[in-house]
């Protein structure tokens, strides 16, 4: 019998939601939560011997401990292969799944499979790793796609466990990792290249054999000579907005930004501001908005002359960053950047969660 360990976050293990995001790594015997769905797709061929879970925040804030605990559990359970997720559009969960698969394959030599929406930021990380032992399947944005996702993952993980050879991404259905492999073809390269060239000239479709990935690479801006003489602005992706959320930001997938004036304020008073964000527990920031928009610290540095008088731009920019699609965030960044340039701002502090 093939032995599978299924790794999920606290929510998909059935432990709880955002209030349990600080949970340490834990283990449930056999299949629990989402792993039950996996077990039913695996049928008789394989067994989920344990469901390992972690709190979404705990994993990122104590990564070394979390990974060590997961590795120890996998060794103890003598897993043949590992499933992590699927994470759908959850950013923290997706990143954790990719990181876990990466480490498990490196340290234990096990092959791993995970799943998430193609727009999940962790997909970029998966591609960057180019790990031939880790496979990622694209899923729907929301959990409505759980069953179809597990239907692709279950037979696939059995093949991984049995050590079967896995073909190219487009044939097998996983997301390409940018790994090039040698294959034998009947026609020489020169003929294939000329066919492609002719198709291109004729405006017909053709498929390159060497796909190139295009990623944004932003060169670091030159340093400021003297911050105390520079005009500074603050951007907040934690979602701190005036109480009542007057512009109607959503807790996820926002596609616009706003700025809020603080020219007359020394602090952001509790009760007058709130955090709108579906990706972390906003209780702390609702109590003290400075955790996400540190106006008190900025004013204190201004009083000491570390920030020049009148040099702090009198409004901060905000968009709750949760589940922002890269395309939208790129546009928002360009819009805010253009405005900052127009306003003559020299340096920006971006407070992210």
């Amino acid at each position, binding site marked *: 019998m093939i032995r599978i360990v299924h790794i999920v976050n606290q929510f998909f293990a059935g432990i709880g939601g955002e209030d349990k995001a600080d949970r340490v790594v834990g283990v449930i015997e056999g299949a629990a939560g989402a792993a039950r769905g996996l077990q039913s797709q695996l049928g008789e061929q394989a067994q989920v011997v344990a469901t390992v879970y972690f709190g979404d925040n705990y994993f990122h804030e104590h990564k070394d401990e979390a990974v060590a605990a997961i590795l120890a559990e996998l060794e103890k359970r003598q897993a043949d292969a590992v499933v992590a997720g699927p994470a759908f559009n959850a950013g923290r969960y997706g990143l954790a799944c990719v990181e876990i698969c990466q480490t498990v394959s490196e340290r234990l030599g096990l092959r791993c499979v995970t799943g998430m929406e193609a727009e999940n930021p962790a997909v970029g990380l998966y591609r960057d790793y180019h790990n031939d032992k880790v496979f990622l399947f694209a899923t729907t944005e929301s959990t409505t796609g759980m069953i179809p996702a597990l239907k692709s993952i279950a037979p696939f993980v059995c093949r991984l466990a049995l050590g079967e050879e896995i073909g190219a991404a487009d044939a097998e259905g996983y997301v390409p990792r940018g790994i090039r492999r040698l294959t034998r073809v009947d026609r020489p390269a020169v003929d294939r290249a000329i066919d492609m060239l002719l198709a291109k000239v004729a405006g017909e479709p053709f498929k390159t054999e060497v796909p190139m990935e295009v990623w944004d690479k932003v060169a670091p801006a030159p*340093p400021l000579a003297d911050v105390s003489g520079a005009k500074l602005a603050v951007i907040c992706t934690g979602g701190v907005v005036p109480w009542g959320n007057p512009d109607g930001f959503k807790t996820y997938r926002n596609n616009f930004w706003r700025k809020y004036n603080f020219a007359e304020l020394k602090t952001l008073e509790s009760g007058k501001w709130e955090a709108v964000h579906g990706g972390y527990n906003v209780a*702390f920031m609702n109590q003290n908005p400075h955790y*996400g928009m540190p106006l008190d610290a900025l004013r204190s540095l201004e009083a000491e002359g570390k920030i020049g008088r009148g040099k702090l731009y009198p409004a901060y920019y905000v968009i709750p960053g949760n589940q922002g699609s890269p395309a939208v965030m790129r546009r928002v960044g360009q819009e805010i950047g253009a405005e900052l340039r127009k306003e003559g701002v020299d340096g920006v502090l971006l*407070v992210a969660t």
Partner: protein
Amino acid sequence: MISAMYPVAEQVGASRIVKAVAIPHPCGDPSLPAELDAQLRREIVATALKALEAKVETSTVFAPKIAASA
């Protein structure tokens, strides 16, 4: 950029990254007395100001001097 998920910021290529306390409260630590919490926040923002004056060629993480307790 001030972020508790600084390894991720590094992986996606942010230029100047300041290590924050925790995802739900990057600038400060609610388990500290208010005064120390405010000092920690000030230190994090001051570190960000220093980062703006630093010449960097690639993703660089700056750690605030006061250790986060969380």
